[in-house]
C-alpha cells in the first residue's frame, strides 16, 4: 500500500501577542495508506479539528509539511483549491450548511463546482445516492423538510459526490440517535469499500472506533500521544484513561472478568469478539484456561 497522505513535523501556532500565542498542534508526524480507515480520538480541545483542517489546505502549517500523493500541497499555493476535491472534509454538524432548494441540488453542488455538468453531473449524483441508499424520491424534496439524521446523510453525500480519494469526517455521528449513528457508519463503510478510499474520522465513540478503524491516532494537548493499529492502542487502557479517554465498554467487562480469575485475552474490543471468546471458554468446560 502506498502512502496517500503524509504529515511531517506539523506545528500550528495560533497567532496573537506573546501571552495568547500557543501551539494548537505541535510536531505531528504520521501517514495514512490508500483504502485505510484512520480514527482520531482525543479530549475536547486536544487539537483534532485543527489537525484535520491542515490535511486539505484549509489551514497552513506554521512549521512542517503535508504531502498528498508524495507532493507538498503548499508547493503551488495558488492550486491549493484542487486539493480540496481530492481530500474532502465533512465538518461537525454539516447539516447546518445545507442551503439549496432541493436535496438533488445540494448533493450536486460539490461536483458542479469541480466542473461537472449535464449527464456527467446527473450520473455522479445518482451513483453516490444509489451507493448510500438515498432514494430518488428524496431528490426534489427540500433539505429543510428532512429529519436531523437524514439531513446529516445528505450533507455527507454532497462531499462524497466529489469522490475524494481521502474523506475526512469531523465527529460525523455526534448528536445522532443510535439508528442515525448506524446509518452514517454504514455510509462511511460503503464509500470506503466502493472506491477504496481512505477515510479519516474524528470521534468520541470508542465502541464505534473499535469496529471501524484500522488505525488510531490519539491526541493529547496538541501532541500526538499514540499512533498505531486500533488493537495496539486499545491495549493501553491506563494511558487512555489518564488523558480522559477510555477503552470500549466490552473491553472493560472483559478486564473485570480477568480480575475474577477467568483467563480472557486483553485484546477484545468488540461485542462479536467477546462472544466468540466466551463461547470457546464455555465449550472448554468453563475452565479458567
Amino acid at each position: 500500500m502506498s502512502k496517500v497522505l503524509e504529515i511531517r513535523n506539523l506545528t500550528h501556532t495560533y497567532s496573537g501577542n506573546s501571552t495568547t500565542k500557543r501551539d494548537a498542534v505541535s510536531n505531528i508526524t504520521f501517514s495514512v495508506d490508500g483504502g485505510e480507515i484512520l480514527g482520531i480520538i482525543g479530549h475536547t480541545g486536544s487539537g483534532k479539528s485543527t489537525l484535520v483542517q491542515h490535511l486539505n489546505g484549509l489551514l497552513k502549517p506554521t512549521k512542517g509539511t503535508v504531502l498528498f500523493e508524495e507532493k507538498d500541497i503548499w508547493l503551488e499555493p495558488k492550486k491549493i483549491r484542487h486539493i480540496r476535491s481530492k481530500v474532502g472534509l465533512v465538518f461537525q454538524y454539516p447539516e447546518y450548511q445545507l442551503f439549496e432548494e432541493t436535496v438533488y441540488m445540494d448533493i450536486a453542488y460539490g461536483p458542479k463546482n469541480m466542473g461537472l455538468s449535464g449527464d456527467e453531473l446527473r450520473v455522479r449524483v445518482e451513483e453516490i445516492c444509489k451507493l448510500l441508499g438515498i432514494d430518488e424520491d428524496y431528490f426534489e424534496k427540500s433539505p429543510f423538510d428532512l429529519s436531523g439524521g437524514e439531513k446529516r446523510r445528505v450533507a455527507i453525500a454532497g462531499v462524497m459526490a466529489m469522490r475524494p480519494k481521502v474523506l475526512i469526517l469531523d465527529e460525523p455521528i455526534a448528536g445522532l440517535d443510535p439508528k442515525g449513528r448506524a446509518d452514517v457508519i454504514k455510509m462511511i463503510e460503503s464509500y470506503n469499500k466502493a472506491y477504496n478510499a481512505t477515510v479519516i474520522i474524528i470521534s468520541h465513540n470508542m465502541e464505534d472506533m473499535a469496529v471501524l478503524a484500522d488505525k488510531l491516532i490519539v491526541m493529547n494537548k496538541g501532541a500526538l500521544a499514540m499512533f498505531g493499529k486500533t488493537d495496539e492502542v486499545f491495549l493501553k487502557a491506563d494511558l487512555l484513561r489518564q488523558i480522559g479517554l477510555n477503552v470500549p465498554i466490552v473491553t472493560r467487562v472483559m478486564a473485570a472478568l480477568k480480575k475474577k480469575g477467568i483467563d480472557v485475552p486483553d485484546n477484545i474490543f468488540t461485542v462479536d469478539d467477546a462472544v466468540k471468546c466466551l463461547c470457546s471458554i464455555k465449550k472448554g468446560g468453563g475452565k479458567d484456561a
Partner: protein
Amino acid sequence: MDSIIELKNVTFEYDDNDIKNTVISNFNLEIERGSFTVILGHNGSGKSTLAKLFNGLNKPSAGEVFVDGISTLDEDNEIEIKRRVGMVFQNPDNQLIASVVEEDVAFGPENLGLRPDVIRQRVDEALKAVEMYEFRTAAPHHLSGGQKQRVAIAGIIAMKPECIVLDEPTAMLDPKGRAEIVSTLHKLNKENGITVVLITHFMEEAEKADRVIVMNDGKIITDDIPKIVFSNVKKLKSVGLDVPQTTELLYSLKNNGFDIKTDVISIEEAADEIYNALHLEEK
C-alpha cells in the same frame, strides 16, 4: 405521587405552511419530586418538544402543564416557572455569555434582583456543587466542553431550581466530559434533592436513573426502571434505539446458549453474570 411536573391531556402542534403538525397528543405524564428520570427516543420522537413543555418554553395547544401546581399557561407566573425548572441544552458554547465563569453563573440570580451578598453566596455554592469553584475566575473559552457544560449547570443551580431538564447535554463531549456531567447530576439529585430529567442518546447514561421513559412517535412506549427497560432489546431496536454495550453482550451470549440474565447494565454486574454462567457450566 408528589409531582413537580404534571402534564394533563397535553397536545402540542405547530403550523408548517398552514399544515398542522401534531407532535404529541392527549399526553399524560407526572415527574415525581426528587426523582432522576431519563428520556430516550430517536431524533424526532418528540423528546425535545416534551422538554420545552416542562418549563413553558413550549405552551400546550390543548391541555395543561403544571409546574409545582402552577399552570405554564399562566403568563403572570412565567418567571416563577422558569426559576423552578431550569434547562440545559446540547451546545455549551451557545449558553455561556459572560467572559468570566463566576459572572456567567451570577447572571441568573442578578436578574432575580437578589442582594449582592446573597448572589455571591449562591454563585459560590453553585460552583462548588458542580466542582468548578477553582475555575471561578477563568474565561469560559479556556475550559473543556465538560467543564463549560458544568458551568452552564451551575448557572441553573444558582437559581435554586426544584428541577433541571437537560436536552442531550453530553452530545458534544468526550468520554471524560460525559462521565463528569452524569456524576454531577447524580450528586445534585442525591445531595441537593434536585429533580433531574435527562434527555440523551447514550444508553449507558440511564444506568443509575430511577426511571427510564422511551418515546416513539410522540408516545411513551416504555416507562420503567432501567433494568426492565433495557432487558427488552428487541423493542428498543425496533424504535431505532440501542441498548448499553453490556446488555448487548449479555443478550448475544444468551442467544449463544449461555444461561444468563440480561437485565443488568453496569460493568461489574455484567462481569458477575458472565462469571457465574461460566461456573454453572462446570457443575
